């Protein structure tokens, strides 16, 4: 009996302490961190720094080079940070499927930038910036196989990165019995598993798929590009409209002065830069 009481009291005090510290922390966050250049409402996790969460494993959008993320997204974000007078700082690579929840909690990172497709469902959790890239899904398989369309994989074992629109596409479209979806943390693990023959097809965004089959996995090819017309946006906490506005404004001004297109064409010389609504 005594033990149970003790257990209960420990639990209660621990949870109280947790909730109290959380609320104090949140209150602290709301107080400070405003930036001179833009709206007073813009909040940063670390004052003066634009903190980014990304899985850093999605070339050509972002990948680690040594301990530094490089690619289209880091360059665009650097330009945005410069525009806002902030330092740009990437957190160490995060798991893709936890980034949006982290953004929503608003305590760890300011921006989630991991080629997030803007969807209405995700908008329930976070806000998105202007779309900065048009993308599609791709079904990737070993060249030695004879599949010709994405629907050929109905009923087979396929893979996707956990939490992605690729995984959603498989769940929604490959509904035949026997379809097994294996979910991976990283796109590179997904491709390794495909090359190892553990899955018959990998479903993920076409630009990253194209990069992988052109460089590291020349024994694989894109079986079909699935036209989904999805668009990427930077994710920002819903409680931080000031930051969202600042990022959108910066993107538009980068678009107007040509910086956005220059960076875009450096990575995607064959594609048309998005209009960003200008």
């Amino acid at each position, binding site marked *: 009996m005594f*033990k*149970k009481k*003790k*257990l209960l009291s*420990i639990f209660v005090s621990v949870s109280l302490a*947790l*909730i109290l510290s*959380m609320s104090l922390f*949140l209150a602290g966050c709301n107080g400070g961190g405003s930036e001179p250049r833009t709206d007073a409402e813009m909040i940063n996790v670390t004052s003066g720094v634009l903190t980014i969460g990304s899985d850093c494993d999605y070339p050509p959008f972002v990948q680690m080079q040594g301990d530094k993320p490089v690619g289209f997204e880091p360059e665009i974000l650097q330009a945005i940070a410069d525009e806002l007078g902030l330092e740009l700082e990437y957190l160490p690579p995060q798991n*893709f*499927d*936890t980034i*949006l*929840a982290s953004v*929503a*909690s*608003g305590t760890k990172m300011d921006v989630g930038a991991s080629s997030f497709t803007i969807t*209405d*469902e*995700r908008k*329930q*959790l976070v806000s998105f910036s202007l779309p900065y890239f*048009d993308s*599609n899904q791709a079904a990737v398989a070993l060249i030695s196989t004879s599949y010709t369309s994405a629907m050929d994989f109905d009923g087979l074992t396929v*893979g996707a990165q*956990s*939490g*992605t629109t690729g*995984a*959603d596409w498989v*769940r*929604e*479209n490959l*509904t035949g019995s026997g379809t*097994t*979806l*294996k*979910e*991976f*943390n990283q796109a590179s*693990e997904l491709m*390794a*598993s495909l*090359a*190892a*023959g*553990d*899955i018959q097809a990998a479903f993920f965004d*076409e630009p990253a798929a194209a990069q992988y089959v052109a460089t590291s996995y020349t024994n694989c090819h894109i079986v079909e*590009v699935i*036209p*989904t*017309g999805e*668009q990427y946006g930077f994710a920002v906490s819903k409680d931080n409209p000031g930051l969202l506005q600042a990022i959108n404004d910066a993107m538009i001004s980068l678009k107007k002065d040509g910086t956005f297109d220059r960076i875009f064409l450096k990575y995607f010389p064959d594609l*048309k830069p998005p*209009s960003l609504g200008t």
Partner: protein
Amino acid sequence: MVAVLSLLVSFMAPPTQAQGLTVKKTTATSNQITGNQIIGGVPTRITWEATVDRNEAVKQITLVFPEGSSLGEHANTKATVLEGTIRLDTKFTSTISNTQTVVVFDELVESDLLIRLEMFYVALPEASGEYTLTGSYIDATGREIKLEESQTISVIAATTVDQITQWMDDQPWVEAWNSVLFLKIFLNPQYLVASVPALFFGWLRSLGLVLVGFPLAIPIGLGISFLRMARFGVIRFFAAIYVNVIRGTPLFLQIYIAFFGLPLLGVSLDSYVLGIIVLAVNSSAYLAEIFRAGIQSIHKGQFEGSASLGMNPVQTMFHVILPQTIRRVIPTATSEFILLYKDTARLAAVGVMEQMMFAKSLVASSGNMTPYIVSAGYYLLVTLPLTKIIAEFEKKLAAAEGSTEAPVKKPKRRLFGIGSIETLIPQKKPDEPLENSRSAKKLRLDEEEGPHDKHD
């Protein structure tokens, strides 16, 4: 294309016009918190795709929902037009109601383009069944042409769990609880309820991994421990390499090598089987050290005594030494079991369907962390009772073996009164290897060195 179409049209007792819009697909996304099916009466997202045929252009599309459909909050329709795989900047206006959605394009959508309509937060009828979307479109000349019927969407009636979570959605206390972001994301009542049954099978699969893997590791470990004590240096050398390489590299790395490397060598195994093998091999190295220390802790006099009774070394080992060893190593071996059980979670990274994988995909599809908390509960369901058993066993062992040989009692910290956590807390490592240690106290330290390395 045209030929196929005209064939289709002739079959279908066509409306006034030839079909100029080919419906490619109609699907709905799963709206179960856990699971892949579509429940009636709960908002889902319907995706409808069609291509505009040659010599046709589309101004407006009307899609009629099955009777009994309803709308959720934020319901809306988005249209995307693609030329091949290129997204066009097509402007449109859309309206949506309980019965239909109407999309009007600012400019005509020309032939060969793909139109993709996504209807968010539309609830299909509550009764289970196969549903289709009907409707019509308006072409360049203003004619209204009936659409061919879409592919069917299978809808199931809400399961008990779905009903409970829906009921919770409407409760004021749930709403109040979820208004705190931390509670909403980590201890969400709806996800708590939905995750328990959803993770159950993952839990069984994880348990299966360790319940097969660990018994496999015991004979391998015992064999290796004998080799470690072999008379010939060469054998001892190779056994030591086995133990040190496996204990000296992260399990995570071993998993990667096995899963991505072996298939390239032409060894292709079911990932669940391969997972068991990796766990067994990994654990065998730790068990080998536990067994070796256990055997060496038996007093030398017993070997001599057995020899004087006329027993050969093999008989001595199996009839005298091992029975005592087993009793002594049970607590540490059980700790190793607990560690191995927790390590099954690492297999999620390479796509083995186990508990962590189940939790991960729930978290991924919902953006809510609660399934992880439920997952932690499932792990504790196994580890806490085992910890308690170890503590009890140690007590008995101490009583049975008397004062000199017994494990030395340390002041114990109690974990919520449930059991000793001593076996899980890293102990100070001895300064030098205890190859010849016979003291029970030192033995315990030596045994515990192994498992902790794993998590460094």
